């Protein structure tokens, strides 16, 4: 291949990727794609980077989602714990402790945080925009959604949530805090129904 051909190929590639870029940046399309997620099961590995600790804390477990509003996070190691979100009720279960039920209407901060994940999984843009400034970058094959809380109260808890994925699958959820601490959750889809 001669140099001009290389240049041409590069240009073509650049053009193609730019076209794809321009198209994929439309958030509506991503949301539409995500909204097709009807139910899914996945495993997760979450790492928390906390300044006072020398190494990240790792926890693992399973996630399951059922459209439109049921989300379950079951942590298996190191300490079993389960969060179940159904509609407006969040149930927390820990072995040896009383089961706690929280009404999200009474706890808008918790609700806003949870809505970021559920809203993304369900492709519900309006619910996301109610609480966050939503930004999108990348391509359809590798998109990244950034959510910045609008409420001052929330920014005390986290400064940004980054969600990335491939097509309709969410791959990672990162949470950044103002003091530099952050957490990363990588998700491996096990079973998806669309």
């Amino acid at each position, binding site marked *: 291949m001669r140099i001009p051909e290389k240049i041409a190929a590069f240009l073509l590639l650049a053009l193609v990727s730019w076209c794809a870029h321009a198209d994929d940046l439309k958030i509506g399309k991503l949301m539409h794609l995500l909204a097709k997620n009807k139910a899914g099961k996945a495993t997760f590995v*979450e790492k*928390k980077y*906390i300044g*006072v*600790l*020398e*190494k990240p*804390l*790792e*926890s693992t477990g399973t996630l399951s989602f059922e459209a439109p509003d049921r989300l379950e*996070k079951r*942590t298996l190691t*190191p*300490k079993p*714990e389960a*969060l179940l979100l159904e509609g407006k009720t969040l149930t*927390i279960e*820990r072995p040896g402790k*009383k089961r*706690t039920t929280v*009404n999200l*209407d*009474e*706890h*808008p901060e918790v609700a806003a945080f949870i809505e970021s994940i559920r809203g993304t999984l369900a492709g519900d843009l309006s619910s996301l925009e109610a609480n966050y400034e939503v930004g999108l970058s990348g391509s359809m094959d590798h998109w990244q959604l950034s959510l910045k809380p609008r409420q001052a109260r929330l920014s005390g*808890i*986290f400064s940004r949530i980054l969600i990335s994925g491939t097509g309709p699958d969410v791959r990672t959820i990162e*949470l950044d*805090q103002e003091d530099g*601490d952050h*957490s990363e959750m990588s998700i491996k889809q096990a079973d998806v129904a669309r």
Partner: protein
Amino acid sequence: MRKKRLPLAIWIAALFVCIAIIANTRFVSDLSAFMPKAPSERQQLLVDQLRDGIIGRLIMIGIEGGDAKQRAVLSLELARQLRKSGLFSGVQNGDSQTEARDRKYFFENRYLLSPAVTPGRFTQQGMHAAISDSIDALSGDAGMIIKRLFAADPTGETLALLEEFSGNSAPGMLDGAWASKDGKRAVLIAYTREPGTDTEAQARAIGMVKQTFAALPGRSASTRLVMSGTGVFSVKSRDTIEGEVTRLAGASLILVVCLLLAFYRSFWLLALGLLPVVSGALAGIAMVSLGFGYVHSLTLGFGTTLIGEAVDYSIYFYLQRTGELHPGRFWKTIWVGVATSIAGFAALLFSGFPGLAQLGTYSISGLIAAALVTRYVLPSLVPEKLGLRDMRRTGLALDRMLHFAPRLRLLPPALLVAACAVIFQHEGKLWNRNLSTLSPISTADQQLDQSLRSDLGAPDLRFMVAFSAPDTEHGLEGAEEARAVLEMLEKEKVIAGFSSPAFVLPSLKMQRTRQAAIPARSEAARNLDAALEGLPVQAQKLQGFLADLDSAKNRKPLTRSDLEGTSAALLYDSMMIRRPGDVLVLMPLREADSGADRPIDVNRVQEALGKTGLKHPVVLDLLEESTRLFENYRNEVLMLSELGCIVIVFLLLFALKSLRRTLRVIVPLACAVACVTALLLLGGTKLTILHLVGLLLVVAIGSNYALFFENSESSGMEERRRMQISLLVANLTAVGSFGMLGLSSIPLLSAIGTTVGLGAFFSLIFSAILSRSRVIS
């Protein structure tokens, strides 16, 4: 003439004395004055709790209308101004300053407050285990939030503390202030400084809230205030009672005056006829005032009862003056009537219920005064021969009606049998156990109360452990001792949880034990170093922890004054009630299964507490306790009324000197009482103590009719006709004035009104039927 003037002079002098006494009388309208003197220790606790406890001081406030932001701003400003007013010991609405003070108090004093601080806690092993647990907690879902506490509190005391309060639901937050679950109402709690039994003070506090709210700067007209609570209820019911009593007394007075005017056709006779009533009422109020130190408005409300009966005396007297009725026989009948009435009312006199005792005193002294005035004062004022309006036509008409009486003579006994059958059928469900049916509070107000209560997550405080201690320190130590037992019961699911004043302020003894469990700084540092072996934390990051431990070990123990400005202060005060000479400790219990009829097995809790070193701990079920209290009084009144009835029978036997004549008086009364009871039951009413009092009044009033009918059986035709008219008028006044009470919206008054109105009517009809049947046959 002198002989006639003496009674007149005595009467006028007595009236002046009565008026002088009444002028210095305190009139009370709140229902708590009607509260019984409690005979048992448990019930005394209940009354104390109602009088001084947090229940009576709590005012729940809601702000509705406008938008959430407006409501929150109004809530914050309202709370700020109310706190300044000095009428409240605390106002809570979730404002950030109080929240911050609360956080500060619990965080700074965590080593003195945490139940986990035991001697092993800060050894090498203890710290290792606690810090490992905390790190595990950090990897959990709440990790990114609780990590802030970790550096200063690696052993997790703050979380251990929070665990203690976990069952208490706090109201939700919206725009910086408490809000209802649906977010449509901002909610606040205010605690009045004065006790809930001081209705005047409660009225002032409620007025202050209303006034302050109305004057809040920038308040939009669409926002409004709602309030509830025991104090609000008592002020409201006081206002209702005062309004109703005035209205009903006025209405029945007008009714009686109109009836009498139609009968007498003379203002002079009317005025004279009312003299016994007025004198009786004045004497009654004065006697109650002398005997009790105050007069309850409800007692005044029953003044209409006196109008009903005392007016009869003058009616009978006019009757005697009109005809040829033998004065000796006439007065004897009157005296026997008065005596039977007194025997009936005397039952009330001995009741432990101040309200009923007042009623008894009022009625007895009123009746005696009215009878005396009729006997000794009226004769000198009324002409010897009265030319009453000729009621011949009415009399004849009445007589014709009574001609049918013999055909109906089997009706009263038949009705008696039927009524008894109905009563037996309702055996076991005769009495109303639900106290709220006596409450003058409307259902709408009760619903508002429920909804505010659930918005605020205010516990209903039905169950509690109560004990007394010589001082606060012993009280707190007692609460700590009870804690171990209650935690066990919580594990066994007998209770869902409990509150303790020692959660927010441990006893000095406990604080010193916890301080002793903290090692000296150098030792703590050594233990920490060793404890961190194998954990992903370095000791130098936890220096704040060591400093806090050290200052906790060496600080002066916490006292009540350290709580100032926190919401914990109110919590503490609500559970530690200072009384002259000792402290009453109350530990509310949370119900394990709120759906059950008796959600907490009180006996089991009582038994478990009995094994501790606590002196006389009592487990209270306030609902059960108050229900039982009223049941005791009902049984007492029932017993006393039975006694009263027996006395009446003996009295009649003695006065009439004939069993047959006595029966003639008693049978129509018995029929009337049974029929009224049966009718009430058939109408779906369950009987209360007030119906019982009503029945007693039926006997008291009805006995006069029965006596006069019985007495007239031996007199002439003309005489009898006149007497029938008089009795009819007397009956109409009684039925009218009690019927008026029956219309009252206050259950207390309407229960008595309906019972007596119906009963008086039945007594007359049955007496007439039975008496006439005998005359004709």
